[in-house]
C-alpha cells in the first residue's frame, strides 16, 4: 500500500508539471485563500487580544470576587451584602499560585460639585498604589493616575469636562453613608482618565479606598478585583477561593464586560466564520475552474487508464493526489508570504478607528497563531482537493467508451 501510494504521488508530482502555468495558477489560488485566512485570523486575534488586554488592564482585572449571589439582583441596601471581613480572603488570595495582585474595591454613587456645577457620578474606592502597577491600559489624558495620594480623585474625561475640572482643582464629593446620613470630602483632582467607553468616562471617578470607606462609614468592601499572571490562572484561582460553601462567587472579566468585550468577541468570531466560508467557496470555485479544463483535456487519458483496468477510484485518486500536491504547495506558499508580510510591512501594526461603543482608536498588531497556521494549511489543501474532486468526478464517471470517443 505504501509502495502504491508512493507510485501514485510520484506520477502525480510529474503530472503537475505537465502544464506549469495552470499548476501555478492553482497554487496561487490556494496561496491567496490560505494566506487571506491566516492573515485575517491573525488580525482578528490581534484585535481580540487588544480588547482583552485593554479590558483587563484598564478596569476589571482578570475578574472580581463578590459575595455569592451579589451580582444576580439589585439590593435596597447593597452594603449588607458586601465582604464584611476582607482581610483573611485577601491574605489567602495572595498565597494562591497565579495571583499577582489583589485589589479591594467599593462602588458607590455620589454627587460631585465644583463651582456652581453639581453632577452625579459613579465612584470607585480603590487601592491606588496597588492598582497603578497593574491597570496600565487606563489611559490618563491629563495629570497622573491615582496612586498613593491620600485625598486625590481621578475623573473620567466626560465627567471632568462637564464639571470643568482639571488636575489641581478641588472637587467636593457627597455621598450617603450606609446609615443614611450624608457625608462629604474635598478631594484634589490628580488626573483625568479615558477608557474609551463613553458611558464610564462620562460618570466614573476614582478615589482612595480609605476615603471611600470613610465617606460611606464602613470597613467592608464591595468586591476584590484580581490581577493574575496569565488568563489560564483564572479557573484554578476562582475554584480555590470561590468554591461551593465559600460564600463567594468569582466573575471573569468577559462577563463583567459582556456588553463590549464578550459581544465583540462573539461578533468578530462569527464574522470570521462567515468570511472563512466565503474564502473557501471562492478558492474552490477558482480551482474547479482551472482544473476542469485540465481534466477535460485528459479525457482520453482517463479512457486509456480505465480501458487498461484502472478503476474509477484509481483514476480519481490520481487527480486527487495532484490536487493535494498543489494544495500543499499553495497553502505553504500562502502561509510563508503572510509571515514575511507581517514581519515586514505590518511590523509596526496599524491604527484602527474606534469600534462601536468606544471613543478612541487603537493600534492593532496582526498576531499570527501556530494553531491557525496548521488549520489554514489543512483547510487550504482541502479546498484544492474539493475543487479537484468536483472537476474530476464528472470525467471519471464517464463510461470508457464516452471517454475514448474523443479519440
Amino acid at each position: 500500500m505504501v509502495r502504491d501510494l508512493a507510485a501514485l504521488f510520484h506520477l502525480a508530482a510529474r503530472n503537475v508539471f505537465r502544464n506549469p502555468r495552470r499548476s501555478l495558477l492553482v497554487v496561487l489560488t490556494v496561496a491567496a485563500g490560505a494566506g487571506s485566512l491566516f492573515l485575517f485570523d491573525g488580525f482578528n486575534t490581534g484585535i481580540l487580544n487588544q480588547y482583552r488586554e485593554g479590558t483587563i488592564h484598564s478596569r476589571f482585572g482578570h475578574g472580581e470576587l463578590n459575595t455569592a449571589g451579589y451580582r444576580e439582583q439589585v439590593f435596597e441596601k447593597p452594603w449588607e451584602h458586601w465582604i464584611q471581613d476582607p482581610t483573611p480572603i485577601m491574605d489567602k488570595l495572595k498565597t494562591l499560585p497565579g495571583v499577582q495582585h489583589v485589589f479591594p474595591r467599593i462602588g458607590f454613587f455620589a454627587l460631585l460639585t465644583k463651582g456652581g456645577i453639581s453632577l452625579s457620578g459613579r465612584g470607585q474606592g480603590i487601592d491606588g498604589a496597588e492598582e497603578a502597577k497593574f491597570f496600565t491600559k487606563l489611559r490618563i489624558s491629563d495629570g497622573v493616575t491615582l496612586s498613593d495620594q491620600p485625598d486625590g480623585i481621578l475623573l473620567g474625561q466626560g465627567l471632568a469636562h462637564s464639571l470643568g475640572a482639571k488636575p489641581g482643582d478641588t472637587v467636593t464629593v457627597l455621598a450617603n453613608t450606609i446609615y443614611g446620613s450624608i457625608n462629604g470630602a474635598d478631594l484634589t483632582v490628580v488626573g483625568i482618565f479615558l477608557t474609551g467607553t463613553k458611558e464610564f468616562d462620562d460618570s466614573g471617578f476614582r478615589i482612595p479606598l480609605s476615603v471611600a470607606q470613610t465617606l460611606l462609614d464602613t470597613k467592608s468592601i464591595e468586591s476584590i478585583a484580581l490581577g493574575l499572571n496569565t488568563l489560564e490562572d483564572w479557573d484554578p484561582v476562582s475554584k480555590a477561593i470561590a468554591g461551593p460553601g465559600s460564600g463567594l462567587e468569582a466573575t471573569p472579566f468577559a462577563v463583567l464586560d459582556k456588553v463590549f468585550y464578550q459581544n465583540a468577541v462573539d461578533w468578530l468570531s462569527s464574522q470570521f466564520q462567515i468570511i472563512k466560508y466565503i474564502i473557501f467557496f471562492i478558492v474552490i470555485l477558482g480551482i474547479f475552474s482551472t482544473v476542469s479544463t485540465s481534466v477535460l483535456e485528459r479525457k482520453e487519458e482517463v479512457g486509456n487508464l480505465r480501458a487498461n483496468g484502472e478503476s474509477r477510484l484509481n483514476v480519481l485518486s490520481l487527480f486527487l493526489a495532484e490536487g493535494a500536491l498543489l494544495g500543499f504547495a499553495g497553502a505553504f506558499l500562502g502561509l510563508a508570504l503572510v509571515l514575511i508580510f507581517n514581519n515586514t510591512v505590518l511590523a509596526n501594526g496599524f491604527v484602527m478607528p474606534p469600534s462601536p461603543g468606544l471613543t478612541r482608536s487603537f493600534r492593532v498588531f496582526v498576531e499570527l497563531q501556530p494553531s491557525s497556521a496548521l488549520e489554514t494549511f489543512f483547510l487550504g489543501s482541502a479546498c484544492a482537493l474539493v475543487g479537484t474532486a468536483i472537476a474530476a468526478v464528472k470525467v471519471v464517471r464517464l463510461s470508457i467508451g464516452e471517454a475514448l470517443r474523443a479519440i
Partner: protein
Amino acid sequence: MDKVEPLFQCKNLAFHYPLGTVEVPALHALDLTLSPGQMTCFAGPSGSGKSTLLRILGLIEPIQTGDVLYRGTSLKGLSEKQKNQIRRTELGFIFQHFVLFDTLTAVENVEYFLKHRGFSAKEKRERALNALNAVGLGAQARQRPRQMSGGQRQRVAIARALAKDPRVIIADEPTASLDQATGQQIMSLLSELGKTQGVTVVLASHDPMAMSFAQQIVRLKDGHLQAVESRSKLTVAPAAHVAPRTEEAPWCAI
C-alpha cells in the same frame, strides 16, 4: 484438423449511440466468430461500426443487445470489477493517438499498467524492458514520449500492451496517425509479435496497407456485416493457448 475453440463469438450483436432523444444505430444484429492466434482486421468506411465492434470486444462499450462470448463465457452482465480484471490481464490496448504519459519515460509508461498484477518492482522493470526490446526500443527506455517520433511512440504503446502478456491485443486505427512507411513498420511488428508471442490481434482500420497484414478481414458497412474474408496461410508458432495450423490456402470469402 483439430477444432479450434473460438476466441470471440458475437451473437445477434447490436449497438446504438444515444444522441439527445434519438438513438443512432451503429451495429445491426451481427453474428461473428473470431479464432485465436490470428490477426483480424475490421474494415470499412467511416461510420461502418468497426471501432464500435472493436470496443465492444474490448469491454470498452457495453453489450446492449445480443451477446459476446469470450472463450465460451458470456461477457454480458459482467460486473465492472470482472470487466476490469479481464481488461487488466487478458487484453492489451493500442490507440490511434498512442495515449502515453508524457511525464513518464518509455519504460515507466510500459510498466505503469503492471502495478495491479502483483509483480515486484524488479519484475515490472524486467517485463517492461523485455517488451521494449521486443519492439526494438530497448535503447530508448529512458526517453520521454516527446523525445520520440510517432512510430516510436506507437511502439511504446505496443510494448505497453505486450508487457501485460495479454491473450488479445485490441488496436483501434493503430496506423492512422503515422505516415505510410512508419505505419507499415508498425503493422509488420504487430504481425510478427502476434506470430512469435502467440497473441491474437484484433484491429480496426480503413487503411488497405493495414488490412494486408491480417489473416481475416471482417468488412462492415453501415453497421452491417458485409463479408468475412479469410487467408489461412499460417505462420503462427505454437503457443500454449493456440492450436497449431499448417494448411495454406489463398484468400477466400466466407
